[in-house]
């Protein structure tokens, strides 16, 4: 029972981390509090559904199209909707507030379009639902794939952000955009790039969770909330932090469901979140606000 709780919790946490990692890039580097993040996740879920049911393309293969498409879409969103806000924001706080308002509106636009196209119904499809035996625990293959992607993306980005030039530039922008300009980093380009990249990761998250979750057009908000918690708990801008925070939450939920009461799963998520904020307000791996 314990091993099942742990492994099930790890796959659950993998899902949380996967859905949150794009937001940590968008919030950390581009300083955009993207309230429409969950809607972008759901859009990807619906596209995966259409691929799977109408075109017969499995979601993993569909990623080859969805990732560049969502990168491009988010690039356009940043250029058209958010660049004006960035240009006139006098400081980070102002940009955050402006971006909250703007993306809040974007949330309703995306949700409205999805509603018109797909209606309010639940959608679900069957893919990779075979049982896999991991150390005595039986887990669905699709959840393991999601976990795998989460780990690869988390570690991969950690390496990219610390070992490559572009990654270091992104980190510099996250720390202080003004100083970053002084060392000849094109902050606008970096912010736009990070936003688009974050959006692409949201799409990856959406496609992968659509394999095992039942989703509807109204579920975007739920994803945004969960992602926000994971991002803030892990430290804003820190991908590895998001991964670890997600895993902690998943395992905690699973253990509480097994040993205490399944009704407390949401409560334990918030309790841990509050504890982390009380002890280390900038998140597990975050640096103190400048």
């Amino acid at each position, binding site marked *: *029972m314990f091993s099942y709780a742990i492994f099930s919790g790890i796959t659950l946490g993998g899902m949380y981390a996967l859905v949150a990692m794009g937001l940590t890039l968008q919030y950390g580097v581009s300083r955009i509090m993207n309230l429409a993040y969950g809607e972008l996740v759901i859009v990807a879920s619906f596209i995966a559904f259409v691929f799977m049911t109408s075109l017969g393309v499995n979601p993993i293969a569909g990623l080859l199209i969805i990732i560049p498409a969502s990168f491009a879409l988010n690039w356009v969103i940043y250029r058209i909707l958010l660049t004006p806000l960035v240009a006139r924001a006098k400081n980070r706080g102002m940009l955050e507030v402006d971006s909250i308002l703007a993306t809040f509106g974007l949330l309703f636009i995306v949700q409205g379009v999805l509603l018109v196209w797909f209606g309010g119904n*639940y959608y679900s499809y069957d893919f990779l*639902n075979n049982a896999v035996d991991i150390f005595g625990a039986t887990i*669905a293959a699709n959840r393991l794939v999601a976990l795998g992607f989460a780990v690869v993306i988390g570690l991969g980005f950690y390496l990219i952000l610390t070992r490559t030039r572009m990654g270091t530039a992104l980190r510099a922008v996250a720390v202080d955009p003004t100083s970053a300009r002084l060392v000849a980093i094109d902050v606008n380009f970096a912010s736009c790039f990070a936003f688009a990249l974050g959006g692409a990761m949201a799409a990856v998250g959406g496609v992968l969770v659509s394999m095992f979750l039942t989703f509807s057009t109204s579920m975007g908000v739920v994803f945004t909330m969960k992602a926000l918690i994971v991002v803030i708990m892990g430290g804003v801008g820190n991908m590895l932090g998001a991964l670890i925070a997600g895993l902690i939450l998943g395992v905690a939920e699973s253990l509480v469901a097994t040993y205490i009461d*399944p*009704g407390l799963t*949401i409560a334990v998520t918030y309790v841990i979140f509050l504890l982390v904020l009380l002890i280390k307000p900038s998140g597990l791996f975050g640096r103190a606000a400048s």
Partner: protein
Amino acid sequence: MQISAKLRFATIAAATTAVMSTATLFGANAQETFRIGYAISKTGPGAPGAATSTIPNYEMWVKEINDAGGLKVGDKQLPIEVVEYDDRSSSEEAVRAIERLINQDKVDFILSPWGTGINLAVAPILDRAGYAHLAGTAVTDKAPQLSQRWKNSYWLLGTGEQYAVGLAEFLKGLKDEGKINDKVAMIAVADGFGIELSKAGREALEDRDFDLVYDKTYPLGSQDLATIVNDIKSLGADTFVAFSYPPGTLGLTEQSRVLGFNPKVFYAGVGTAFPLYKNRFGDNAEGVVSLGGASEDDPKIADYIKRHVAFAEREPDRWASIVNWATLQSLQQAIERAGTTDREAINAELAKGGFDTILGTYKPGDQTFWQVGQWQGGKFVGLAPTSMEGAAELVFPKPEWKAAQ
């Protein structure tokens, strides 16, 4: 005397205006359309339920009537004009929308919103304004009291207790035949529906000497119930009862399949009777028991399903959709019987009952529909009340889940 041009003009203008206003006086009282209003959850957590059980019904009903020329009110044919609002799955929004329909839009009739909570919220307002309330997607133990307290309040799906007792009776029959042991694992969604049904279920099962080896609730909206299913698997219960909501219903079915959890009786909650369940699980839906049921061999019901698919491009559910359609048919006949758009006359006709619907002769509030059903061969057939005509035999035990492709 010469009448000045100005005076002549003014006199003719005044006379024309006087004649015209008397003309409009005669025409002013003619009602051109029958105005129907409703507030429904188009967004928010209630949206999927409303999109399955309610919205296609309302829209199809209006379209079919208008295509035939409209409602026959007296010797006129009045097309239906719809005023609809999105209540965003919020009781406050629904109340506000209903008040707007009553006070500003002044509609002739108001159709009910979706969900137990919202229907309970708008019921007193409809009663105070003299509108009938045909609550088609609400399950509450307060139903009999409310129908008595508010004259024109109809709670179409009945009480939580009747579903729980219906199931418990069914299970007792199986236990007496020695087909299942006395252990039952029960979970419920931590929301009105789950709490009411699990309370009634707990009493009904314990009264019939069942042992509840697992009795927990899970948060609304949760889909990851794998740990729960894994815990239950080792308890040796022959019966699994989940008073769940979608998406939890789908989640726990899928997770039971992955974990190879095969109790002899698998009862899942709201969502099992949805076409989504059949589409998602295919042959694996075989043998799953739930609330509701539909006599698909009955030509009236088969025809309704066909028209629903043609109109909404998806099937209706096999529980609330059917009861709601019968009620909409009743409403149309009540309006036509009353022969007037006067609300009190229509309400009086509704109370008389005796309408010809897909459920046979029906009065809103009649509980003459299936309470326990099971997926058999791609159809969600009715099992209980066993006294109803056409009750099918239970497929027992539930076939083992087939491995995923």
